[in-house]
């Protein structure tokens, strides 16, 4: 048993070290939040304030920078987690995966090592965003940071599993590029990441401001609840019930992990 844990550790360590050596990934991890925060956040900051739509008053009691910041943390995690797909495709194109499969390590533990490695990397990338928290008006206590890391880890675990499932269907690296544009960004934009659905509004009022299809997409996107939970932790603002948020994130992670286990049988 100890031998197997050593194997999980080996795969985890290999994964984390590999991503830390990957300059492209690190540059992406740093530049993405800077762009979103500096350009989009600062640029839209002055226009983000209460508006009156007929009878409806639309207010989020935060600056746009504060509002978007937790979503940028989630964005970085989303990108990095799904990169696990690239790492798996790489291992498959080369012989590593086959060699691991010939070793006495049980498949599920190989998978676990991979996912833990990807999730760890994603948490590191999430923390790179947290570093700039105080500069965008998001003061963090230690407890906030720890809670954020716990949420990041759960989310990363699920999203890395998602990446691994994707890797099983994607042939080659080009396919992955297409995938990331077709899936990651739409998921992100419809997660109420860059615009709010005001919690003070009734559903009828929300529908008066936004087209119904958009509201429906946002409500059905599980990432919406991850972003909302992150906002709850970092700026104490929730658009949905926080326990419901955590339940959605937890169930999503569990389901994605089980799907990954299922898919990994036939790698």
């Amino acid at each position: 048993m100890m031998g197997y844990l050593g194997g999980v550790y080996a795969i985890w360590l290999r994964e984390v070290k590999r991503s830390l050596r990957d300059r492209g990934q690190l540059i992406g991890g740093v530049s993405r939040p800077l762009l979103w925060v500096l350009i989009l956040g600062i640029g839209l900051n002055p226009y983000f304030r209460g508006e009156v739509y007929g009878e409806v008053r639309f207010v989020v009691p935060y600056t746009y920078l504060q509002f978007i910041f937790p979503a940028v943390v989630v964005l970085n995690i989303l990108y990095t987690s799904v990169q696990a797909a690239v790492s798996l495709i790489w291992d498959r194109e080369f012989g590593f995966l086959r060699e691991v499969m010939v070793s006495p390590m049980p498949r599920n533990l190989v998978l676990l090592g991979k996912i833990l490695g990807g999730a760890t990397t994603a948490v590191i990338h999430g923390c790179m965003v947290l570093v700039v928290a105080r500069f965008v008006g998001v003061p963090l206590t230690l407890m906030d940071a720890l809670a954020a890391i716990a949420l990041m880890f759960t989310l990363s675990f699920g999203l890395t599993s998602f990446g691994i499932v994707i890797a099983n269907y994607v042939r080659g690296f080009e396919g992955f590029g297409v995938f990331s544009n077709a899936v990651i960004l739409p998921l992100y934009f419809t997660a109420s990441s860059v615009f709010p659905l005001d919690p003070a509004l009734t559903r009828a009022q929300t529908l008066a401001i936004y087209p119904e299809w958009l509201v429906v997409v946002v409500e059905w996107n599980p990432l919406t609840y991850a972003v909302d939970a992150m906002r709850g932790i970092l700026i104490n603002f929730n658009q949905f019930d926080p326990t419901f948020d955590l339940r959605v994130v937890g169930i999503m992670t569990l389901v994605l992990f089980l799907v990954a286990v299922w898919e990994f049988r036939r790698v």
Partner: protein
Amino acid sequence: MAETSGEAGAIHARGLRKTYAGRKGQEVVAVTGVDLDVAPGEIVGFLGPNGAGKTTTLKMLATLLKPSGGTANVSGCDLAADPLGVRKRIGYVSQAGSTLPDAPLMLEIESQGRLYGLSTKEARRRGLELMEALDLGGLERRKSQNLSGGQRRRLDIVMGLIHRPELVFLDEPTTGLDPQARANLWEHIRRLRDELGTTIFLTTHYMDEADSLSDRLLIIDKGEIVGEGTATKLKAELKGDSLTLTFSGGEAAETGEEVAAGLEGAANVVRQGNVLFLNLPDGARALPGLIKRLSDAGAEPIGAELSRPTLDDVFLALTGRSLRE
């Protein structure tokens, strides 16, 4: 259960078979039924063209694919009943290599060792030993992207041997190497066997590799073993010298085929397009007569080449096609 009880490092397979369900529900046969025996400490070359079932057979023996039928005992463990036992005893070096290009070698070796339950220290110790043995001493901090092709293949072998397997599978070990690096690698592989007694089962589609590296050959085609023995024995089984005749067109070659087939002593007559291959006892003496008969039949060859039989001829005779296709 396999018929013979297996000893460490040996392989005994009977009727090993792999089929897939095709698109319309019909059965697609990848490996029809392979019987093979490998003795401990042997270097066996598994030879066949692409698509012959080489890799599928190798994958089945290495527990990567579940056989659809048949039995096998690999290094003393039953393939179906104890795949984990098999995995502990075998090494597998894939064709593509497995190291990350930008990772220091020792890091990858340690990581591989841990997969087999070795401590970092032990993995490092064995890694250094093996690197020394394979002429990679002093390179442990190098990155594999900075190694030559031959060094990289040797590194892959170090990784495959880290847990001291009794039997190691090498999938096309020298594909893509220059001739000098290939000869050098053969040297190393032979030494591994001589010094460690490791059984080596390698696939290849290079005749010279099969000829000079392997103690014994297994030739597979269309999912079946079609020939088996030492290179010398296989060549001796071919009757006579090999003769290659080139005709100006397919029609002339067809006529040529008929004439040659009627010739006394001619064997293994195979036509590919406008080229005819056959074996002829005492070829140098028989050739002028044959050419005259061909001319009389209106199928004068535009080229003729006579040679001592090579493994390629063996292959052609056994499978009806050239390995170089």
